[in-house]
C-alpha cells in the first residue's frame, strides 16, 4: 500500500512513466489500485519460481479478492465504471493467465520492481530539487558521491537483511516439511502420495538453495561496493592527513574531522551489520545443510574478506587528531622541549564501541628508533596509557587525549650528558626526528585487534629560542618534502625543495603569524635572493642553503624567521593591512620609487640586519637624479619603545636644509602618510588645556641627520623627547632633557618657535620657553656658560625682557652669517686644542648658533637659522670619523656629532643640565660639556664614558663653569683665526657677558646644583606649563594634560626675582 501511495504522490513526469508502464501491462491499473495493499504484501518473486504452487495460489487469491471487491461496490456512477473495469480485468486476467500463473507472478513482480525504480528516480529527483533549500554548505562532488554510496550501501544492506529473513522463513518451512514428510528407509516409492511429497520437498529444497545463493551473491556485491566506498573514505582521509600536515605548517585549511567520522562510522556500522548477517547465515547452515551447500563454501570466504575489510577500515580510522605541540607555541607544533608540557590526541573515527569493554590506549616514543649513532632516547614522564574516552555527547567521539606529557632524556651511562656527548651522532639535535606511536586494543562485536597510529615526526629541543627556530625549519622541510610521513632518517639526506612548494610554505608562515601571506612580488624577491635568478618551476633549493649557509652570517631561514618574529611582535597589523611592502630588493625599490613624488616612501625588511625593518624614501633634487634614502633598520629593540607608525609620524631628518622635517610624506604608491597610518598611531592623551598638569607628556621621536659628504647614507638617532618632565626632572627645563638626548632635541630647539613645525613643536616650544624658566638664574649665569647658552637665552623671550643689553650683542645677528664661512679654520683650531675629534662639531655649532642667536635675540627667524648648522657639520666631515672613533664603545657616533651641534644650543639653555647628561649616553654627556668651550671638549675627549655615568655626569657641569675661564680664552684664540671682524666683535661681546656669568657658575657646586634641580625643576615645569599653554594654539600636540602647575617655590632659579614670568605671544613665533 505504501508503495502505491508513494507512486501516486510522484511528480508528473514520473507519474507519466507509471501510466505508460500500466498502459502496456496485462495488469490493469484499476486492479493494482484496488488491491494495492494485498499485492504489495505478497512475495511475487518467490512465486515466479517454476513449478511453485505459490503462483497459482496467488493468482486465485487475486481473482477471489477481485470478486469480493466487486460485490462490495455500490451502485453509484463512479462505482459503476469501476465495477465494469474490474469485471473486465478479472475476465481478461483469467483468460490470459489461468494456465500460466507463474507468468502472472512474474509480471506482477516486474511491475512492482519497475514501480520501485521509478519511485527511486522520482525521489532522487525530488531531493535534488529540495537540496539547495537547506543551508548546508555546498558539497563537493566527491562528498556527494560518498553520501550517495553510503545511502545505497545501507539500502542494499536492508535488502540483504530482508532476503535473509525470507531465507529463514523458507528454511523453517522446509525444515518442517522435511521432518514431517521425509521418511527414509521405508520403501514407499510406490505410494504416489509420498512421491508427491518428496517432489515438493525437492522443490522446496531447490528453492532454499537458490535463495541461499541469492543471498550470498548479494553479500558478494555488498562487499564489493563497500570496498569502493572504503577506498573513497581512505582517499578522503589521506586528503585530510595532507591537510593536517599543511595546517601544521600554518596553511589555512579545514582540519575538522566530523564529516569523516560520520562516514567512517556509517560504513563501520554497515560492515559490522554485514558481519552479524554472515554469522547468522552460518547458523542457518548449522541447522540445515546439504551437499554443495553454498553457505558452507562461501560464508567462510566472505567472512575472511569482510574481516579484512573491517580491519583495514578500523586501522585507518585511528588517527592522530592533534599532533604533539606545546601549548605556549601553538603555531609551531611538532617542536617539543624537554621538561615542557605538551599534548597530543588520537581519535578513532569509527565511533563504535562496547560500553562494557574498556579500551586502553597507550603511547610509546620512538618504538623503533633508527639505528643512528647518538640518537637521543627519551622517556615519557607522565602516564603513557589511558582509557579511550567515549564522550556521552555524540560529538565528542572516541578520543584519547594526552594532555600533560613531558619528555625526559634518558641518560646513557658513560655518555656524559647524553645529548650530544662523546657519541655525537651525525645529525644535529634539530634534525633528529622522533615519533610517538599510539596503540589501542580494540574490541567490538567479537572482532579484536590492535590499532596503531603515529604522530608526525617531531623535534625535541632542550633550551633556547634559537633551537626553536631551527627546529621549526626542520619541521617545515620535513612536512613539505618527505614522501614518507614516518621517515625518521629524513635528514640523513634531506632532499632539495622545489621552489614553488617552498614559496607556498613560506607564505603560510606569514599568513599564520600575521594573517597575510606573501604576494607574487614578495616571492619573486625571495627567489632572486635565494636562487640568484628568476625562479622557474624547476628551481630547487637545498636544505643547507635554506637553513645553514648564509653570506651575511645568518642563514636564509634565520633571516626570514627574524622578520617573522618582528612581525609577530610589532608589525602584525601593518603587515596584515598591506602597508608594509616588505620584500623589495634595492633595485626593485628604486624602480618603484623613481617615478613617485618626493617624499614617497615604502617600508621594507632589511636584508642585512636580522629582523630589521626600514623605510626608504625618494627625493627629487632640483637637478640631478632622484635620490633614495633609507634609515638604519629598526629592530625589535627600537620598536619596543616606539611603534613603527609613530616613528613614521614623528620622524625628523636633520639635514643641511634649514628646517628639520619629516621626509616621509606619501606611502607608496601615493597615499598621504597620515591617511595611511593614522589608524595605527598610538593614542594621545588629549586633555583640556586649562587643566593644570604636573608633567608635560613625553614623546619619543626619531631623528636622522645627514651630512653632505655622507652622501645618501642616513643616520638615525634616538631622541628621547621629553614628554614627561618627570623623566627630565633633573633638568631645569624639560628641554634640557631633550638636549642631552641628542641632536634631535637640538633641532627642536633650534627650530623651536620659529619652526613650529608639527613635527615636534611641543618639544620645541618648551625649549623656547625654558630659557625663560632659567631666567631666574639670571642671564648672568647663562652668559658664563658659553655663546651657545647665550643664544638660547636670547631666543627665549624672557631673556629679552630682562636684559636687552645682554642680548644686544646677539642682535647683530644678521651680520653673523659670515661667521659660518669662517668655520673651516675653526675646525683646525679646535682640533689642535682639544685633541679630540668632536671639537669640529662644537665649532660648527657655535658659529652658527651664535650667529643665529645674536641675530634674532628674540626672533624666531633667527632661531630657525640655527638648525641650518648642518652646513657646518658637513664641513666637519673629517671630524666625524673622529667622533665615531670615540664613540666606538658607545652608541652610534653619528649621533654624537649631530647632538653636539645642536645640543649645544640646548645645553646652554640648561646651564645646569647635568642631569641631562646622566640621562644621555656618554656621547651626550660630552656634548653638553662641550657645548661651548674647547676646554670642555678636552675634558670630555678621553673619558666619554666617565661622563656618561650619572654621578660623574652630574658633576661635570661644574667643570664647565671652570672652563669658562678657558672658554673665553679659547674664543679668543678662535677670534683671530676667524679672521672676521664680526666674529671678533662677537667674541668680545661674549667675553664681556661671560664674566659675570662665570662668577655665578663658579659659585655653583655640583652638590648644590643637583638638589636644586630636583626641587627647582618642578617650578620650572610650572612655568613651562604655562608657556606651553600659550603655545597650544599652535601645536596640538604640545600641551599635555599632565602638565599641572607646581606651586611656585623658591629654587635656584626662582629666587632670582629679576626675571618676570615669561610671556610668549603667538606673535613671537611668527
Amino acid at each position: 500500500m505504501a508503495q502505491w501511495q508513494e507512486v501516486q504522490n510522484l511528480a508528473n513526469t514520473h507519474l507519466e512513466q507509471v501510466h505508460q508502464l500500466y498502459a502496456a501491462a496485462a495488469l490493469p491499473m484499476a486492479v493494482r489500485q484496488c488491491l494495492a495493499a494485498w499485492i504489495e504484501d505478497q512475495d511475487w518473486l518467490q512465486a515466479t519460481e517454476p513449478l511453485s504452487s505459490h503462483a497459482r495460489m496467488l493468482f486465485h487469491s487475486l481473482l477471489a479478492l477481485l470478486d469480493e471487491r466487486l460485490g462490495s461496490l455500490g451502485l453509484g456512477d463512479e462505482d459503476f465504471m469501476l465495477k465494469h473495469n474490474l469485471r473486465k480485468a478479472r475476465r481478461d486476467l483469467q483468460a490470459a493467465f489461468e494456465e500460466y500463473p507463474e507468468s502472472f507472478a512474474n509480471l506482477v513482480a516486474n511491475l512492482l520492481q519497475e514501480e520501485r525504480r521509478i519511485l527511486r528516480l522520482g525521489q532522487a529527483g525530488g531531493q535534488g530539487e529540495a537540496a539547495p533549500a537547506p543551508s548546508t554548505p555546498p558539497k563537493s562532488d566527491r562528498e556527494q558521491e560518498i553520501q550517495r554510496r553510503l545511502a545505497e550501501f545501507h539500502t542494499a544492506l536492508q535488502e540483504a537483511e530482508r532476503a535473509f529473513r525470507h531465507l529463514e522463513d523458507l528454511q523453517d518451512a522446509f525444515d518442517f516439511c522435511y521432518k514431517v514428510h521425509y521418511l527414509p528407509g521405508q520403501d514407499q516409492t510406490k505410494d504416489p502420495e509420498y512421491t508427491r511429497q518428496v517432489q515438493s520437498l525437492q522443490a522446496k529444497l531447490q528453492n532454499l538453495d537458490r535463495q541461499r545463493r541469492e543471498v550470498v551473491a548479494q553479500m558478494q556485491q555488498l562487499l564489493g561496493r563497500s570496498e569502493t566506498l572504503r577506498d573513497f573514505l581512505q582517499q578522503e582521509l589521506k586528503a585530510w592527513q595532507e591537510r593536517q600536515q599543511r595546517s601544521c605548517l600554518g596553511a589555512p585549511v579545514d582540519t575538522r574531522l566530523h564529516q569523516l567520522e560520520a562516514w567512517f562510522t556509517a560504513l563501520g556500522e554497515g560492515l559490522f551489520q554485514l558481519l552479524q548477517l554472515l554469522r547468522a547465515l552460518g547458523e542457518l547452515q548449522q541447522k540445515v545443510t546439504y551437499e554443495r551447500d553454498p553457505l558452507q563454501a562461501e560464508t567462510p570466504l566472505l567472512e575472511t574478506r569482510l574481516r579484512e575489510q573491517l580491519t583495514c577500515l578500523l586501522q585507518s580510522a585511528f588517527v592522530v587528531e592533534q599532533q604533539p605541540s606545546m601549548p605556549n607555541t601553538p603555531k609551531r607544533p611538532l617542536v617539543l622541549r624537554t621538561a615542557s608540557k605538551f599534548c597530543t590526541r588520537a581519535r578513532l573515527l569509527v565511533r563504535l564501541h562496547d560500553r562494557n569493554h574498556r579500551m586502553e590506549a597507550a603511547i610509546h616514543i620512538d618504538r623503533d628508533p633508527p639505528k643512528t649513532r647518538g640518537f637521543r632516547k627519551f622517556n615519557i614522564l607522565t602516564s603513557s596509557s589511558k582509557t579511550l574516552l567515549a564522550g556521552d555527547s555524540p560529538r565528542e567521539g572516541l578520543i584519547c587525549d594526552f594532555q600533560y606529557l613531558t619528555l625526559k632524556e634518558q641518560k646513557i651511562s658513560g655518555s656524559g650528558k647524553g645529548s650530544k656527548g662523546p657519541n655525537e651522532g651525525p645529525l644535529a639535535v634539530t634534525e633528529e626526528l622522533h615519533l610517538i606511536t599510539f596503540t589501542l586494543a580494540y574490541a567490538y562485536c567479537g572482532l579484536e585487534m590492535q590499532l596503531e597510529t603515529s604522530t608526525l615526526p617531531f623535534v625535541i629541543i632542550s633550551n633556547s629560542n634559537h633551537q626553536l627556530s631551527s627546529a621549526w625549519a626542520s619541521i617545515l622541510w620535513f612536512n613539505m618534502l618527505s614522501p614518507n610521513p614516518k621517515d625518521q632518517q629524513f635528514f640523513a639526506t634531506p632532499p632539495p625543495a622545489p621552489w614553488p612548494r617552498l614559496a607556498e610554505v613560506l607564505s603560510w608562515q606569514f599568513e599564520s603569524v600575521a594573517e597575510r601571506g606573501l604576494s607574487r612580488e614578495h616571492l619573486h624577491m625571495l627567489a632572486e635572493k635565494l636562487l640568484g635568478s628568476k625562479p622557474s618551476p624547476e628551481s630547487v633549493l637545498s636544505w643547507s642553503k635554506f637553513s645553514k649557509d648564509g653570506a651575511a652570517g645568518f642563514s636564509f631561514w634565520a633571516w626570514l624567521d627574524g622578520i617573522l618574529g618582528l612581525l609577530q611582535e610589532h608589525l602584525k597589523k601593518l603587515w596584515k593591512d598591506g602597508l608594509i611592502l616588505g620584500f623589495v630588493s634595492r633595485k626593485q625599490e628604486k624602480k618603484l620609487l623613481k617615478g613617485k613624488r618626493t617624499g614617497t616612501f615604502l617600508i621594507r625588511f632589511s636584508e642585512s640586519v636580522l629582523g630589521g625593518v626600514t623605510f626608504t624614501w625618494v627625493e627629487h633634487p632640483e637637478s640631478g637624479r632622484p635620490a633614495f634614502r633609507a634609515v638604519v633598520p629598526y629592530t625589535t629593540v627600537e620598536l619596543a619603545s616606539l611603534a613603527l607608525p609613530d616613528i613614521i609620524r614623528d620622524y625628523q631628518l636633520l639635514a643641511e636644509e634649514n628646517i628639520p622635517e619629516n621626509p616621509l610624506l606619501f606611502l607608496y604608491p601615493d597615499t598621504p602618510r597620515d591617511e595611511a597610518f593614522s589608524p595605527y598611531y598610538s593614542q594621545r592623551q588629549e586633555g583640556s588645556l586649562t587643566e593644570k598638569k604636573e608633567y608635560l607628556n613625553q614623546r619619543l621621536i626619531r631623528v636622522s641627520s645627514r651630512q653632505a659628504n655622507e652622501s645618501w647614507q642616513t643616520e638615525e638617532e634616538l631622541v628621547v623627547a621629553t614628554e614627561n618632565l618627570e623623566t627630565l626632572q633633573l633638568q631645569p627645563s624639560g628641554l634640557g632633557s631633550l638636549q642631552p638626548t641628542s641632536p634631535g632635541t637640538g633641532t627642536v630647539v633650534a627650530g623651536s618657535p620659529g619652526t613650529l613645525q608639527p613635527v615636534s613643536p611641543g618639544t620645541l616650544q618648551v625649549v623656547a620657553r625654558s630659557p625663560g624658566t632659567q631666567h631666574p638664574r639670571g642671564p648672568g649665569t647663562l652668559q658664563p656658560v658659553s655663546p651657545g647658552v647665550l643664544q638660547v637665552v636670547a631666543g627665549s623671550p624672557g631673556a629679552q625682557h630682562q636684559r636687552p643689553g645682554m642680548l644686544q650683542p646677539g642682535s647683530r645677528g644678521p651680520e653673523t652669517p659670515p661667521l659660518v664661512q669662517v668655520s673651516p679654520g675653526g675646525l683646525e683650531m679646535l682640533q689642535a686644542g682639544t685633541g679630540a675629534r668632536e671639537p669640529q662639531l662644537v665649532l660648527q655649532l657655535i658659529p652658527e648658533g651664535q650667529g643665529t642667536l645674536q641675530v634674532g635675540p628674540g626672533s624666531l627667524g633667527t632661531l630657525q637659522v640655527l638648525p641650518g648648522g648642518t652646513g657646518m657639520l658637513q664641513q666637519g666631515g673629517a671630524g666625524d670619523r673622529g667622533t665615531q672613533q670615540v664613540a666606538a664603545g658607545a652608541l652610534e657616533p653619528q649621533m654624537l656629532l649631530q647632538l653636539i651641534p645642536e645640543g649645544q644650543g640646548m645645553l646652554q639653555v640648561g646651564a645646569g643640565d647635568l642631569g641631562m647628561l646622566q640621562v644621555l649616553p656618554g656621547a651626550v654627556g660630552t656634548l653638553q660639556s662641550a657645548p661651548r668651550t674647547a676646554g670642555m671638549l678636552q675634558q670630555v675627549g678621553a673619558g666619554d664614558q666617565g661622563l656618561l655615568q650619572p654621578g660623574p655626569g652630574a658633576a661635570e657641569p661644574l667643570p664647565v663653569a671652570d672652563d669658562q675661564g678657558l672658554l673665553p680664552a679659547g674664543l679668543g684664540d678662535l677670534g683671530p683665526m676667524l679672521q672676521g671682524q664680526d666674529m671678533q666683535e662677537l667674541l668680545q661681546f661674549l667675553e664681556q657677558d661671560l664674566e659675570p656669568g662665570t662668577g655665578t657658575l663658579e659659585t655653583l657646586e655640583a652638590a648644590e646644583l643637583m638638589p636644586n634641580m630636583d626641587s627647582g625643576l618642578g617650578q620650572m615645569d610650572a612655568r613651562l606649563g604655562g608657556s606651553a599653554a600659550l603655545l597650544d594654539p599652535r601645536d596640538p600636540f604640545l600641551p599635555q594634560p599632565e602638565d599641572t602647575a607646581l606651586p611656585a617655590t623658591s629654587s635656584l632659579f626662582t629666587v632670582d626675582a629679576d626675571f618676570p614670568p615669561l610671556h610668549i605671544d603667538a606673535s613671537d613665533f611668527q
Partner: protein
Amino acid sequence: MCAVPAPRVRPRLRGVAEGRPRLQTRESFCHSTVLLMGQRSGRQERSKKPEMSLSENMKAEEEDDREENKELKTKDQRLPLVFGVADLKNGAVGLYNIGQTCCLNSLLQVFLMNIHFTRILRRITVPPYASLKRNNVPYQMLLLLEKMQSGKQKAVSPIDLAMCLSTHRVNMFIQHDAAQLFLTLWNLVKRQMKDQDLVTKLSDLYTICVQEHLACQICSSEMKRNSNMLTLPLPVLDSNSHMLKTLEDCLQCFFHPEELTGHNMCFCEYCDKKTPFLQSMKLVHLPQTLTIHLKRFCFERSTNVYKLSHCLPFPQELDFNAVLTEQQSQAHGSEKAAWRYEIFAVVAHSGSTNSGHYCAYIRSLTECKWYCFNDSTVCQVSWDDVKCTYGHSDLNWGQTAYLLIYMKKHPQ
C-alpha cells in the same frame, strides 16, 4: 539467527546431490518456456520501456539486427524460433550461481554482453536433434542469452549450459581459473560452430597475432614464427621479481626481448651447437576484442602458489602505439592506427588461489554504463568501482582484476 543451534540436518535428496532439482519434465519445459517468453515478453519489451528513449545507438543497433534478421531468415529458415526481438538492448541480467559457477557466470556475461560476439552467436546453425542441441555449446549460449534478455527476471539460471558444458568435461562444482575457462569456452564455441564464415569471424574477433623472433647471438641467424593467441598473458612482476607499476609496464615487460643464456640456450642450426639467443616478440595484429590476462600469481619454490594482490592500475583507454616501440610491432600503419582501445570488461577475483569468488565488471556497449555482475546480483556501478579491482597491497582477500577485456575504439 537462532540462539540455540539446532541439530544439523543433512537431507539427502536425489536431485540435490546433483546440485539442482531433478525435474522429469525439465528439458521440454525449459525449451517451451524460453520460446514462450521470448515471444511474449519480446512484445512487452518494446512497448513497456517508455523511460528508455531509444538512443541513436540503439536504433542503429535495431536496424542492424533487422538486417541480421533478414539475413538469417534467408540463410537458415530453422532459426525463427530462437530469434527474439527482445535483445535490442543487451540488458544486464544476472545468472544464478548453480554451484561454484561464479567463474563461468562472469565469463558468460563477458561474452553475452559483447554485441560483437552475440552478433556472431545469433547466426549459428541450430542443431537438428534434441540431443545435439543439448550438447551444443553455442546453441546453449544462445538459448541462455535469449532467456536472459526476454524475461524480466533479474536473474536466470544457466543450468542447461552448465549441463551442456559438463558433457564437454567442464565440470560444475569445481573452481575454475577464469583464463583457462575462457579459452576452453571459446574453443568449444568455435569448434561447434558449423558455419566456417562464422568461425572466421569469431577468430577475427578474438585472435591476437604476434611474431616470435629467435635470433642467435653468435651467427645472427634469425628464426621467425607467427603465432596466434587469445589472450595476452602479462606478467605482473618483472624479471627481477619487482612489482610492475601499471598495465603499460606489464605490456612493455611482456614485449621486452629476452636473452636466452645458460641452460636456456637453444640449438642453432647454423652454428651447430647451443648458443645464446635473443627472444623477442612483435605484435602483428590486434583484434576487436582484446583479452588481457594478468598473471596475478606467483609460484613459491614451485609448490605454493600465492596470489599477488598489489595495486596495478589499468587505463580506461589504451593505445598500443604509445606503449610499444617501433621494434615491438610488425604491422602496417592502418593496422596500428586501429590499436586504440577502451576498456570493456574486467573479470575480478577475490580470495586466495584456493578459494575465491569471481565477478565481472562490464561496460554495456549499448548504454555505456558499468555493471557489476555477482552471479544473480547485478548492479550498476561506476568507473570508481572498477578501479577498486586495481588491487591493494594491504588486502589479500579483496577484488583484483584478473582478465581485462579491451574493445577497439573504432571497429575496422
